[in-house]
């Protein structure tokens, strides 16, 4: 029942967002129907489109779940961007030099990338634990440091001189992650991470403690939860997930090397998705897919219609606002209506 309600609310909000966007597209003198058709064709319309959507969604799912777990535990990890970059650069560099068979190399490179992300988050964890520095600030700052540090690595020590932009060399071909009919294995890793994260949050004792910390940290502390070590673990684990996102971007994506801008906006999109999804990992997964459709479909929109690419970012923002806004509005008015009917009943009974 509760699940049904949440799904219904999400669908209504998304539809509202589409209506609002349609109006905006009209004001731009384009046809909303054409735009939406392009969005559909390129986002969902065929297996090719759909598998590519899933590939696009994969990093978003990782960063989204990373943010969702952190926020639900009361740990404000906003460093997904930096952690992803550190994971990506580590995997990209090792992928050039490592010399082991493919079946071993791919998982090793993925995990090492994850650890690089965890390490980056670990700096924030250490500052929090020993100097009580707010992870909110430290993870944010580490994003900037990570950004410039990785660009430095790709521009100087590990530069591929044949590339046109600052980039590392291509990783060994044996480490390219396989795909099935266009759908990359990385997506299955994302599904596995979803299941693992759900199990951790809902079933384990530490997950229980973490969620209670998210609800009320004083309650958790006084109740005997290991608040400090759980926070550290959550920071490391969510850092790992973001790092893994970066590693899989190298192993499974299309570039197979680290280059400037490879992190795109995955970090911040993940944070946004987690917020829309109320920090629930399952909802995060589905919103990740939804944004995958938008992103992929957006490419189609640009091909087929005269809507400029900037407008697509604008539409994304509108959709986020509409989803969040409509959801609150629905909750508010449905509550108002319920209390009004209750009032009628109570007055009538008198």
């Amino acid at each position, binding site marked *: 029942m509760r699940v049904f309600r949440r799904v219904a609310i999400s669908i209504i909000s998304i539809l509202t967002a589409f209506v609002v966007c349609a109006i905006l597209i009209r004001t731009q003198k384009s046809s909303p129907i054409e735009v939406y058709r392009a969005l559909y064709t390129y986002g969902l319309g065929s297996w090719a489109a759909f598998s590519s959507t899933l590939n696009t969604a994969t990093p978003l799912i990782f960063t989204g779940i990373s943010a969702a777990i952190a926020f639900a535990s009361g740990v404000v990890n906003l460093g997904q961007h930096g952690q992803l970059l550190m994971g990506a650069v580590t995997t990209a560099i090792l992928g050039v030099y490592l010399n082991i068979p493919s079946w071993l190399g791919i998982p090793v490179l993925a995990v090492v990338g994850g650890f690089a992300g965890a390490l980056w988050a670990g700096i924030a964890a250490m500052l929090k634990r020993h100097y009580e520095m707010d992870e909110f600030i430290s993870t944010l700052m580490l994003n900037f440091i990570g950004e410039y540090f990785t660009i430095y690595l790709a521009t100087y020590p590990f530069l591929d001189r044949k590339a046109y932009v600052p980039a590392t060399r291509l990783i060994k071909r044996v480490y390219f992650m396989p795909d099935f009919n266009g759908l990359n294995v990385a997506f299955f890793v994302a599904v596995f991470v979803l299941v693992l994260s759900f199990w951790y949050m809902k079933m*384990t004792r530490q997950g229980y403690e973490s969620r209670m910390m998210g609800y009320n940290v004083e309650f958790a502390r006084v109740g*005997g939860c290991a608040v400090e070590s759980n926070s550290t673990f959550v920071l490391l684990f969510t850092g790992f997930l973001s790092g893994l996102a970066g590693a899989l971007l190298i192993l499974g994506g299309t570039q197979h090397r680290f280059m400037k801008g490879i992190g795109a906006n995955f970090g911040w999109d993940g944070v946004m998705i987690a917020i829309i999804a109320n920090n629930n990992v399952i909802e995060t997964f589905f919103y990740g897919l939804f944004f995958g459709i938008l992103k992929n479909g957006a490419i189609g929109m640009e091909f087929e219609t005269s809507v400029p690419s900037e407008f697509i970012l604008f539409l994304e923002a509108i959709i986020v606002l509409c989803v969040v806004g409509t959801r609150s509005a629905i909750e508010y008015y449905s509550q108002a209506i319920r209390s009004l009917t209750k009032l009628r009943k109570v007055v009538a009974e008198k």
Partner: protein
Amino acid sequence: MAYIQMTKIYKIYPPNVVALSGVDLSLDKGEIHSVIGENGAGKSTLMKILYGMIKPSSGEIMVNGQRVQITSPLEAIKLGIGMVHQEFMLIPSFHVYENVILGQEKSIAGFIKKKQAANHVQEIIDRYGFKIDSNKLVSQLSVAAQQKVEIIKQLYRKADILILDEPTAVLTPQESDELFEQIIELKRQGKTIVFISHKLDEVLKISDRITVLRKGQKIATVENKNISAAELAKMMIGRPLSYQIKKSQSKPKREILSVENLSVRSRKSDKEILSDVNIYVRNGEVVGIAGIEGNGQYELVQCIIGKIKPDSGRIVINNADVTALSIRERRRIISYVPQDRKYVGLALKATILENLIMTHHLKKEFHKGFLSLNWKKAKSHAKDVTKQFEVIYRDLDEQPMVLSGGNQQKVVVAREFSLGSDLIVLDQPTRGLDIASTEYIHRLILEMRNADKGILLVSADLDELMQLSDRLYVIRDGRIVAHFDPNEVDAHTVGTYMLGAAG
């Protein structure tokens, strides 16, 4: 004609909590009117409506025969209605007069004339006979004095009606008496007072009329003549109070808790919050700590459960020195009911189930496999204890937020008492609870004592301490200043020690 007439007031909190259903209330000019009722009866809601803090779902309010819409406290103040809340809203680092004029400052080109303001506030203070210096910092004042500042604040805003929501909950008997004198003085000067309290003797002492609410309905408004506390209680609860607390002689056994030479210094000022405190608790007895709020009892409890590290001294539980142990390790052997159920005792937005298994989750019997919680076991445990402790709820997946105050506290108490620890630390376990819930929790406390648990009871309610304790310490300025057998002293004597007026 009544001065204020509230007619057929309904309030439904979204989505469907009926807080008030068709309540009438009329206030005459210059009367002291008490509003009583159990937890969740709707007293605060009714008053917040009159003060413009919340909007009624339906109903009308007349002031002096004029129909009014009170949409905000600002509006209420214009109509001469002022309210002092259950929780104070003062800024500790401001002076008394600054707190009083806050939001109503008279300024010239943005500058407040401090001296003039302070004088003006002092005038008001003197006119009504309060004994407070308007130039003191609020942080230097006692709780009782802070409450007076809240009242003065309303008087400064020219309130003719003063609503006092449970003003005596945190006061000693002496302080309460002083407050009553003040209230009567205000009445003499023509003010109308609405007084809310769970203590019926207080209500009978000062009111002219009493309105009884039960479950959002008005039961009656009665003149305070020839009416007894028992009759009022019956109107409030709908049935007579069933039992009296009977306490058997305590049979204390071995020592379960001993606090030795405990001292704590404040980080901010170099003041000692606790100095050289020595107390002990044995199995099978209730040991009370009496003291005016803010005299170190809170810190003492925090030291025992491990939230504050003492600067010197030791804490021994069950013959083991626990001074260096973490909260987590200590909670395996201590049951603890914190004073603040909303912000420490519960996670209001988690489920009732999740609230009930806190701390239990550390125990082996709730583990499953290497990492998991045994949710099935947790559920059946939650069902058992909610039944045993008479918690009223609809669904274990509900949030404690929707429970009444009494039921929220029962969740906390059920969780802690079912832990089975030999040491139970209770910090204000019945604060703000109505008579029935209070009696119920009192009975549980004595049950636990008879089951040979050692109980440390910190309370601001002296009656409660006198009733339940087998031994009683008085704490003042961070020192234990007296140690009594409550059968051998009366409340007044204990109060004298609390105030520091004893030889």
